């Protein structure tokens, strides 16, 4: 026989090489795609400033008190030019901002639109004269979506080499951004955004946990009420439908549902919160099956096992805590002939319309509290005009609107500070927004304990590879409408 020890060493080497290859392939680095900016056609927009307190349609749930209506260009830029530097990243002429995006690979689908919205806003802001006479410079760092070390390195590069004043519009709420987030909190560098890929929780994103970060989106504890009420309404409609399309047995227990979520603490908390809310609707409302899906591409794209388990538990509807579990869950459900109403958090984006086909027809999701492109407020018109000018081939989705809101908040909060722009004062402004109307999304009411600030969202439906808005603003206490306007109806 051959000396097996040597052979064994060879195999150990192979195993180590396999592990190395996995690490390398998961964080492969490529040159970012250059995004064309038609700077030669820069023109100053002519925004129509809206004075604070002016009357526009209020979002439901807005607290009492004066409304602050903000439109880009309506404040700050007219003030005199400062002649001194205020804080790190701020000179008499320039405010340096940074952003960290995945610009390559599959995650570029998320990073590219968010970057484009941010860059377009900055271009327009500079064309309008900047903030209090200071021009804004935006520095982009590309980082792999799932690479924690790379995200932290990107944050370090922006802070220590580019000396940015603040960072805007990243995917900070993903697990891979946690080290970068800790670093920015440690360095006391503000991180401002309206988008981060997944929803957050009021308790997590407050002053204690992330003192230097604001993240404007609908709060988890409000959002799950909206989802739960919507799923309940859909189940009632399905159950009352003449052909009764729900699986056998659902006529006896129409409010038994399943929940599916990615293996992350945030998704799990959201699912637990959904279960608590669902159970509070009555003893006949039960979450019969909670399915955790490993956060790996292979597991997410093949969710047959999770779907089998929910069907086996006699669930009659499904809640998805995140977009991917809805997109691939509905595909697996179609393969297995399990047809039930689906409601998901944060599935508004190309991931659903490009990948799901007819399997997702009828699925419901929300817009994260960030408005709808066809609701043409003055601010939304301005958003459309600027995006069309700088990126005429881009489409509107959750990423672009969310990024726009982040930049609006930054311009407003820093514009109010005048010449003396300090990070601490900026954060005080950003966490003290009261009845703040962007015209792009829901009213923002932020505080030191609540860095999310939104309590309303809108429901959308996927139908024939596009999204339809099927509700107005909904809050935790608002009931869904009796009928919806979409070619897919209630989805059965």
């Amino acid at each position: 026989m051959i000396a097996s020890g040597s052979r064994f060493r060879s195999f150990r080497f192979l195993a180590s090489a396999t592990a190395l290859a996995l690490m390398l392939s998961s964080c492969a680095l490529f040159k970012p795609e250059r995004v064309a900016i038609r700077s030669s056609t820069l023109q100053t927009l002519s925004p129509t400033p809206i004075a604070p307190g002016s009357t526009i349609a209020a979002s439901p749930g807005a607290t009492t008190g004066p409304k602050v209506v903000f439109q880009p260009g309506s404040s700050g830029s007219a003030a005199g030019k400062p002649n001194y530097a205020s804080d790190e990243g701020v000179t008499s002429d320039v405010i340096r901002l940074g952003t960290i995006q995945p610009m390559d690979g599959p995650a570029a689908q998320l990073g590219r639109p968010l970057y484009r919205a941010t860059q377009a806003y900055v271009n327009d802001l500079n064309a309008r004269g900047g903030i209090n006479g200071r021009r804004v410079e935006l520095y982009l760092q590309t980082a792999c979506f799932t690479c924690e070390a790379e995200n932290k390195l990107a944050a370090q590069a922006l802070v220590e080499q580019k000396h940015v004043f603040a960072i805007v519009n990243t995917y900070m709420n993903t697990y891979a951004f946690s080290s970068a987030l800790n670093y920015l909190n440690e360095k006391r560098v503000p991180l401002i955004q309206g988008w981060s890929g997944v929803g957050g929780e009021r308790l997590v994103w407050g002053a204690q946990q992330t003192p230097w970060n604001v993240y404007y989106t609908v709060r988890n504890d409000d959002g799950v009420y909206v989802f739960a009420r919507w799923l309940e309404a859909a189940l009632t409609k399905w159950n009352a439908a003449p052909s009764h399309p729900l699986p056998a047995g659902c006529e006896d227990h129409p409010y038994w549902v399943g929940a599916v979520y990615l293996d992350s603490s945030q998704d799990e908390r959201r699912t637990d919160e959904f279960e608590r809310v669902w159970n509070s609707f009555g003893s006949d409302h039960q979450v019969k099956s909670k399915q955790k899906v490993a956060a790996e591409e292979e597991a997410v794209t093949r969710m047959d096992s999770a779907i089998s388990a929910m069907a086996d538990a006699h669930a009659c509807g499904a809640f998805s805590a995140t977009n991917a579990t809805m997109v691939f869950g509905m595909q697996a459900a179609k393969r297995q002939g399990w047809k039930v109403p689906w409601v998901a958090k944060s599935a508004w984006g190309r991931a659903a319309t490009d990948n799901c086909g007819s399997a997702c027809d009828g699925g419901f999701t929300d817009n994260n509290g960030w408005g709808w492109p066809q609701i043409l407020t003055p601010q939304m018109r301005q958003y459309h005009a600027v995006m069309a000018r700088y990126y005429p081939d881009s489409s509107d989705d959750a990423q672009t609107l969310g990024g726009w809101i982040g930049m609006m908040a930054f311009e407003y909060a820093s514009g109010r500070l005048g010449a003396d722009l300090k990070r601490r004062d900026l954060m005080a402004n950003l966490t003290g927004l009261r009845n703040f109307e962007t015209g792009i999304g829901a009213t923002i009411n932020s505080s030191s304990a609540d860095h999310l600030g939104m309590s309303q969202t809108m429901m959308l439906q996927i139908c024939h590879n596009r999204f339809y808005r099927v509700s107005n603003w909904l809050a935790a206490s608002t009931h869904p409408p009796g009928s919806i306007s979409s070619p897919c109806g209630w989805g059965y």
Partner: protein
Amino acid sequence: MTLATIFSVRLFAQDLLNGLSLGAVFALLGLGVVLIYKSSGVLNFAHGSIAMFSTYIYFEITRSFSGIPLPVATIMAVAFGALLGAGFYLTVFRRMQEAGLLAKVIASLAVAGVLQGTAAFIWRNASQARVPQQLPEGSLRVSSIGLSYQEIGTILITLAVGIGLILVLRHTTFGIALRATAQNRMAARMLGVRETRVAATSWAIGGGLAALAGVLVIPLAVLTVYSMTGYMVRGFVAAVVGGFVSLPAALIGGFALGAAQESLKATPADQLSSVFAGLAIAVLLLARVERFFALDQELRALQELG
């Protein structure tokens, strides 16, 4: 707590079936890895990238030539995978015959990087492409258990291809030459075996198998430059089952891995499912499973390669 509350036979059976379809993909990939390793001593870490790139070719063919029959597009993609495999052997790995295993591994990683980078560049605007499936949508259901036609087709095609390949290697001149090369390169060369031709053919078959795996599984998932990474890890496990030398063991190993991994999800030990492949590699390495499949000469030959 009753047994029924923690274990469902229906769920177990459904997951087992799901696992067999997944295992078919692992098996196809594992067969290619073994074939390439036997013929040229290269542990091909670019195998998954060849599958990914060929699947993008399938996507591009179906997108650019609407109306083209999908079986034709599939055959074209598999042929492209074969060309890719043979091409990489002839341009890169043939020149590294005398190089050590580490150098070959690094070269295969470089090839994988080139393929991923090229795909990311060419298809940057189709970063998550949806690929049409070859078989009709819908599923075959018996009672409350079912499997989609695409998954059933994947299992049957894998069995046909795998068994066919094993028979070819047993009963043809090429198969004899391949086994001779794997056992003793020098002796095979002296007996007139054209090593380059044997290896290039093996790489072509391996590339074709990788492409076949990609075009069969991706229509049920989504195509990105990283799509095949997870499948490839399991493909390596299938290859390890046969000690990197046995094709039948790789075929069975792939199916067994898929079935075991998925059916675990229906048991109280469902948490083990996602780490099962890693555990399997560790156990197989510790058990030195290759002893059961390889001839002493093959072991010696492979050791010399390393």
